């Protein structure tokens, strides 16, 4: 899986491309650890190019969510492909994760909270 990180503003944008499974999930956690080490705790994951996700991939996302919570931060997801949406529905993880249709919507949600 390809992981691109755009760590410029207040929210760190992470773009995932490929399959999110055990191996790539571990890589993702390591990549995010580097971000956390920079005291960043607002993460947006763009899943637009994630074609496949399995139990282990979900487990990685859940563990990232736990880490974000510990750091009193925020994690948002966007651009879920229909299969990824399906797996989020059946596991009801959509109740835990903040999921947006588009990245723009997700990022603007950070702005509105900041503005207030």
């Amino acid at each position: 899986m390809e992981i691109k990180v755009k760590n410029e503003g207040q929210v760190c944008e992470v773009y995932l491309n490929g399959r999110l499974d055990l191996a790539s999930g571990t890589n993702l956690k390591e990549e995010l650890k580097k971000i956390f080490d920079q005291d960043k705790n607002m993460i947006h994951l763009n899943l637009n190019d994630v074609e496949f996700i399995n139990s282990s991939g979900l487990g990685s996302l859940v563990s990232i969510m736990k880490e974000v919570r510990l750091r009193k931060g925020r994690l948002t997801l966007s651009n879920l492909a229909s299969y990824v949406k399906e797996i989020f529905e059946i596991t009801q993880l959509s109740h835990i994760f903040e999921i947006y249709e588009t990245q723009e919507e997700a990022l603007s949600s950070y702005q509105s909270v900041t503005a207030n």
Partner: protein
Amino acid sequence: MNDLVERIGELLSKLQSSDYLEREEAVEELGNYDTDEAVAGLVIAIEDPNSGIRELAAEHLSKMKGDTAPKLLIHFLGNDDITARNLAAEVLVKIGSRSVPYLIEQIDVDDYDVRKFIVDTLGLIKDENSVDALCQKLWDENINVVCSAAEALGEVGSPKAIDALVAVFEKIEDVQPQALEALGKIGDTRALEHLYRFIETDDPIIQYAGIEAIGNIGSSSSMEVLSKYLNDGDESVSELALMAIINISNNTDGNIDFDIPLDKFSKFLFNGVKEKDPEITSFTINRLKSWFGHDVIYNLIDVLDSVDEDNQKLIIESLGQVGGTASTMLISKFKESSVEIKNIILEIIKQFIDENIARKLIGFVDDEDPGIRQKLAHMIGSSYLPEALPVLKKMAGDEIGHVRSAAYAALGWLCTENEVEFLVKGLDDKFVDVREAAAGAMIMIGTEAVVEKFRKLLFDGNTEKQRISALSLGMIGDSTVVQPLIEAINHPEEEIRRSSIISLARIGDERAIEPIAVALNDESKAVRKSAINSLVILQRQECVPKIKFLLDDEDLWIRYHTINVIGDFRNNEFSEYVLPYLNDEQDVIRIATMKALSKMGCREAMSTIDQFANDSNKDIVDAAHQAITVLDGEK
């Protein structure tokens, strides 16, 4: 003309009739004639004993052009019949500016009641031309007339009256409240310096009216003066000063550049919000950006159901900003709250859920509202609190399906490997969302024990369990599920075979290629089609030799699909497989073949495709033209 005069004469006589209908018809008809005689008739009718006729006459009079109506109606203002007098005044107000000169003409009549009535009427007309006359009446010998003149000047709202109102304020004590109110209504900042002076008094009535007037003028320059009164010992004065500040703040988009002792006024402000006062609500919610504290949080919870949806969202966001402290306080209010507020509280707390909050929420899992129980199950599960396990297991037996569903899903988030046997029970639930939630929980756990469970269930007698097992194995999606899914390619149920093939393609394990190739011969068209697509995903072009025999499949649509799939590789090496189908007896196959060959760049097919350009079927002709265009483009 004579006829008209004669007719109006007849109508005027009918106004004296004892027959109500006859009088009504006369008034109705007189309304059509805009002549002095007709107007005079209508004026007479406003004294008619019947109220319906009087109203009808007044309605017609208010629409009449010319000055006859106001000229005549003005005399009714001194009428002893209060009904006729009020009706005349009402018509004069409706006529508006045209009445003003006639009212001013009579403004000095002897009867002070009539003078007052004229002044009141001028106030209702709100015409700037009456300002001078009204200013004169500020010095009338009768105090009622004076007070009415001050009020009327406030209604007219002209800054021309400021000096006169200030002067009368200083000379006549009895008119002071009205003069102050008028200055406020005029809303001109030139009055402010006077008002600042006037409110420095011990007379509370003058202070109230002055502060209110300053607020109504709405200038931010008054803030400093008003802020002094925020600390006044008299609560009414300080609250009035705050109300004036609120008016100014709302006038200036909420910008205030000094601190207001908000805690002192929290009762006043939140009562205003509760009573749905839009000014106070807007001001209070604007202050939430910088106003925190226990009282505020409790008050915000109290007013949540008094405000509209937009303000509710703002309050929730504000509470969210407070963070975990708000959560603890919100939880303490939870039990006594309405279902609506409980929902809002949970929505806020959701952002801060941790083990401590989850422990407190466990105390509410027996809430009588199933929607709340469902939310609680999700929230407790999302805390990953180990003690949540027995609670969620209990909730998985709730009488309401949605609650059971949430509880099963939450058990999955806790990733409790030892609970697989418990979760399997959920697959027998009567509701599909509960069954799928139990499966979802098992997917989250995804261990070999779970895979083994689903593997067995795939061949369980229950078709629903078979469906869920195939779906779940695909979603677990690691190497441990490949073998069970390969076994499922031979499942008796068509849907299981199909979904297993799709899952295997997604997982992308090469062990699946040969079993899927076998499925190309499946009796089911849907399975064969899935097998083609899956092989394309798994093998790309290498699958073509395996699928090419389906070009002769018994099913037209499988043949069609296979041609399309091969064409999509855009490899001319495969054109030999497809070329023969240019002469297929089915038009749809010939069309697909032309398209596929053009994608492959097969120029050898051009002469044959050319012949189709004259076919009797328009779709064939179109496809031929498109294929030739593509092939020509490649030359």
